[in-house]
């Protein structure tokens, strides 16, 4: 009996909250996706699969592919530059570790939009970077970085890097140094140790970090809008447009669910069907 009431106390709050303030809201818009757009943009309660048919369209699929490409690139870059940093931090003294970790997250305490504006100011044609480079005579003509894909990528890496570093760090920090010593004693070079021992043991962190970076990147539209000059159509823009300028909530809902379905499928493949999420994320197997 006590066990039961304990289970209840621990788990009920989350179940209640997520049921009412997460699952039900999502169900509502899932239902919307089967209705039609009213003439002026309300919702006509006519059941149809129309919205889902509309998504199967080269235009939208192109946007999806493009977004997946940029999101993957972003994740890869974050992983490549984030891993050495996480490793570096985990090798420092306890005190330094805390400070360094804090410094990684500190930029986040300014504001998302503000950070993007900062990059706009830096990267634009008459901006800080160009002014400095011109003044130092390193270049003759200003670089056109802002409003290109490069700027979007810079903005994304900048925005999501901490999400990669923190889980990586958590995983690397738990590494038993004995494994490394053992490998060294057995004659492995640092590189071999890295690939054969460290990477496999820190897989949970790599997976968690990749998910935390990849998924939000898919839905991003402010960065492409501001830093990319709204010149390309990504899924995030598409969905936002449906809920705002096109006033087509049913179609927007359908798009959203397709995106989420795609992510779920990708995740399931990645996590390899069978093992539960927690086994994959929280163990060192």
């Amino acid at each position, binding site marked *: 009996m006590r066990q039961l009431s304990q289970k209840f106390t621990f788990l009920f709050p989350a179940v209640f909250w997520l049921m009412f303030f997460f699952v039900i809201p999502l169900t509502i818009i899932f239902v919307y996706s089967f209705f039609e*757009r009213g*003439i*002026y*943009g*309300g919702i006509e309660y006519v059941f149809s699969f129309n919205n889902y048919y509309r998504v199967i369209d080269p*235009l*939208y699929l*192109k*946007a999806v592919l*493009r977004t997946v490409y940029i999101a993957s690139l972003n994740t890869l870059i974050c992983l490549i530059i984030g891993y050495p940093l996480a490793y570096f931090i985990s090798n420092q003294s306890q005190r330094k570790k805390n400070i360094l970790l804090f410094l990684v997250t500190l930029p986040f305490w300014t504001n998302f939009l503000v950070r993007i504006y900062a990059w*706009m100011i830096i990267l*634009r*044609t*008459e*901006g800080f970077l160009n002014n400095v480079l011109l003044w130092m005579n390193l270049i003759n003509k200003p670089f*056109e970085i802002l*409003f290109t894909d490069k700027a979007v990528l810079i903005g994304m890496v900048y925005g999501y890097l901490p999400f990669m570093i923190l889980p990586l760090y958590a995983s690397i920090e738990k590494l038993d140094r004995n494994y490394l010593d053992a490998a060294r004693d057995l004659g492995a070079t640092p590189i071999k140790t890295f690939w054969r021992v460290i990477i496999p043991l820190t897989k949970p962190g790599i997976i968690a970090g990749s998910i935390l970076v990849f998924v939000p990147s898919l839905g991003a539209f402010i960065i492409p*809008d*501001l830093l990319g*000059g*709204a*010149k*390309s*159509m990504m899924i995030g*823009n*598409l969905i936002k*447009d*449906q*809920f*705002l*300028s*096109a*006033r*087509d909530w049913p179609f927007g809902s359908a798009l959203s669910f397709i995106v989420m379905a795609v992510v779920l499928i990708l995740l399931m493949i990645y996590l390899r069907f069978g093992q539960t999420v927690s086994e994959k994320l929280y163990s060192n197997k």
Partner: protein
Amino acid sequence: MNFGIKSNISKLIAKKTIYLGISFLLLLFIAITGCSKKEERKLSRELNVYNWSYYIGETTIKDFEKEFDLKVNYDNYSSNEELFAKLQTGIAGYDVIFPSDYMVKIMIDQKLLADINIENIPNYRNIDRKFINLPFDPGNKYSIPYQWGTTGIGINISEISENVTNWDILWNEKYKGRITMLNDMRFGLVPALKKLGYSVNTINSTQLEEAKQLMTKQKVLVKAYSSDTYIDMLKSGDAWISYGYSGDIYQVANNNQDVIYVIPQEGTNVWIDNVCIPINAPHKYTAEVFINYILEPKVSAGISNFTSYSSPNREARKYIKPEILNDPGIYPSEEVLEKCEFLQDVGEATKLYDRIWAEIKSK
């Protein structure tokens, strides 16, 4: 025993009657107070205003608060669609909103706007007759004109040698990477449609295809699609040619001799923003008092002097800065206005526009 049951039943009947009686009295009470609320001409303690950003005089709100001794909650939105998305939910709680022409019609059709009691707004007579009774709200039952303007081209004449008179400059390859366009699927197509000689409200798919081709051709020359940050770019010199709103560009021009606003000779779109009251507004009477206040000549002029947009308030003209009054970009001649169109909602064709815009963006 029998007594017990009988008295229980009668007790029950008595209880029910009492409850019914009380409920009836309550309903009566609510009906009476409800009714009187509608006729109530009492100022509330606060007013919830929802407006575009930077779209009112610098001190208008503060002055209003002082004069009527109440608090104004002032929030901003940045597009008609944003306003609509919030308003159609019915749970936003605003008293005063400022939708554009086509949006007013949409809101009227969706029954989102309240009847304005014109008796509470005597300053209504200050509005120029030209702006009354427009097609989107015949009789002005739901809206009162606020500011109007056009969209056109902001040109940095120190960098542009050509004399700009039509839309072609937006397609001039010489200025690759220095051109900005509005990021909106309706406004954004205006230059192309007008250049081709079509209506900005066309639903003809062939015409729209042509416009799409033009826009796709232009894309390599475009620095950015932006409905707001372009102002900054024009200011800083990052952009030399910007398709944007009259008042916005005028504000840049005001501080920078090199920037001018041009209305191309093919014509452009003209728009008018209106003050409206949402149907569930909690403080309707106060909202009407507010509307009356901003129609006062000096207050109205204060607003127009700050936003640099055109005022529909005839009486306010006396107090508007002469340099604004004399600028043909802000107060164009009849001749020019003849060639300008109001944007209207295109109903079902909205999906078509959305698709065209998406296609342009994804090239």
